[in-house]
């Protein structure tokens, strides 16, 4: 380890310590399953005791169907706080910003689509955990100037608008922004092996999901070509080559990749239930098992990234649990949907 790197690493001592303390507040799988048996008011109390923001609502409001919105807001605010904390603690803004820009990508998609949807609705479509605030992005949209974005991203919104105007298909906006923002993410995080690997896994899992969903919908190959993200371990060509073939051919083609088991089990589940839910769940679990490595590292940015993604995962688990409870789903169904936890 060079002296410079050593010096930089020790600067993460405070951040790592803080994150280690906060990690103790994570729910493990047993605790999450335990929440299923508790009332919604109890769950709110438990969340508040673990640092989630308080919600000022009556018990009756929480217990009825409307309560879900307040709980989703509570989880969302907590996730925003986690992003802000990581942004604050990070000594490598290039990596943390790459995560934030992905959320900006989503917000931009919403803004561009809103501009062209005839019936304008003021619904909650913006994530508050981007690099830019919603207002800053709106101003950029009004002026049609995106120079505040770094090179590699700043030309994307205009490209998406032009493509939409030409094809009159909102999916073009998604194609351009998704591919562009993920490519930027991969480029920015390429130097950090851990984050780069996370990027690769996420790209692979997204591509797998896109491949199966488009195949099920019997969409054209061109749609797949435009939807696939670059930078994964499974090359795009493998997806394109196998799009019109049998699934078993594809599974055989990826037999040496770590996703073979996920794909096999996910596909078997689809044959039985016509649902890719298991494939997505196994994919999320695979990613979480990789991220868990960050728990055992101290003086680097890895625990911060691990914490951030674990918070995203916990938010997902809590939303699944609460949605399941509010819609009176059976416990076994909710448990089957719950993802692997960080702790």
């Amino acid at each position, binding site marked *: 380890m060079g002296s410079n790197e050593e010096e930089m690493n020790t600067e993460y001592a405070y951040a790592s310590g803080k994150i280690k303390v906060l990690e103790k507040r994570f729910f493990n799988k047993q605790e999450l399953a335990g929440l299923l048996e508790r009332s919604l008011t109890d769950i709110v109390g438990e969340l508040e005791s673990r640092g989630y923001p308080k919600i000022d609502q009556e018990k009756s409001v929480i217990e009825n169907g409307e309560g*879900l919105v307040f709980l*989703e807001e509570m989880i*969302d605010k907590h996730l925003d706080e986690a992003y802000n904390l990581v942004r604050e603690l990070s000594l490598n803004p290039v990596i943390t910003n790459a995560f934030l820009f992905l959320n900006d990508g*989503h917000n931009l*998609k*919403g803004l561009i*689509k*809103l501009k062209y*949807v005839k019936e304008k*609705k003021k*619904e*909650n*479509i*913006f*994530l508050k955990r981007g690099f830019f605030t919603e207002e800053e992005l709106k101003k950029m949209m009004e002026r049609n100037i995106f120079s505040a974005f770094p090179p590699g991203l700043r030309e994307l919104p205009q490209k998406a608008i032009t493509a939409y105007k030409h094809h009159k*298909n*909102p*999916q073009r906006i*998604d*194609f351009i922004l*998704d591919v562009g923002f*993920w490519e930027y993410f991969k480029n920015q995080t390429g130097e950090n092996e851990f984050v780069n690997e996370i990027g690769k896994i996420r790209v692979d899992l*997204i591509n797998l*999901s*896109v491949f*199966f*969903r*488009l195949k*099920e*919908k019997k*969409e054209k190959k061109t*749609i797949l070509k435009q*939807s696939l*993200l670059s930078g994964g371990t499974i090359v795009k060509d493998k997806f394109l080559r196998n799009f019109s073939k049998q699934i078993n051919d594809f599974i055989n083609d990826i037999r040496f990749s770590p996703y073979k088991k996920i794909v096999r089990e996910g596909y078997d589940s689809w044959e039985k239930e016509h*649902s*890719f*839910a298991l*494939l*997505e769940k196994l994919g999320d679990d695979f990613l979480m098992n990789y991220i868990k490595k960050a728990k055992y590292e101290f003086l680097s940015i890895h625990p911060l990234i691990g914490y951030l993604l674990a918070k995203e995962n916990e*938010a*997902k688990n809590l*939303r*699944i649990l*609460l*949605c*399941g409870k*509010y*819609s009176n*789903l059976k416990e076994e169904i909710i448990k089957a*949907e719950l993802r692997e936890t960080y702790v």
Partner: protein
Amino acid sequence: MRLNVNPNRMELLKLKKRIVLAHRGHKLLKDKQDELMRYFLSQLTEVKKMRKEVENDLIKAHQNILMARAISSPQIVEEALLYPSTKIEIESSFTPLMNLRLVNYRVKIGEQKLTYSLVNTSSKLDYALDFYAKLLPKMIKLAELEKNLEIIAKEITLTRRRVNALEYILIPDLKETIRYIIMKLMEIERGNLVRLMKVKEIVRKH
């Protein structure tokens, strides 16, 4: 209640004609009511069954969309659903049934396109939307059936009131009035006869 009419032969003839008409109307309305009732009951079973099916399917679709929100985050699903994925046209026409105009909806669902990103969204969203797409024609059919039932139910109520009015008010009143006029005429007749006999007797005495 007796009608307020002059007790003369002309009125009696008029009332007799009215009572014949009232009986005929009553029979026709009664037949209409019976037929509407039969149609209503046959449709009611189908509507009840369909509503139950639609409600169950809606619950499943809502559960899927809630799960899609949970897996991807509410904002991502809201953004994904910002742009309509298909164009739907509903044409309405009318079918006549016993002087009623029953509605008939025809749905034209355009080609369904993917208008959202598959990168951020969950496959649960695809299922929920497919579910809703399959459910929509069924929901419109249910709306048509329920609207028609409502129209028929209103007509049944109206017809029943008419039948009852004829059966319990107009026809008994007409009958009572006719009986009254006949009695009155008979009384006049008897009075005339007595008067004639009296005149005859006076003439014979002189």
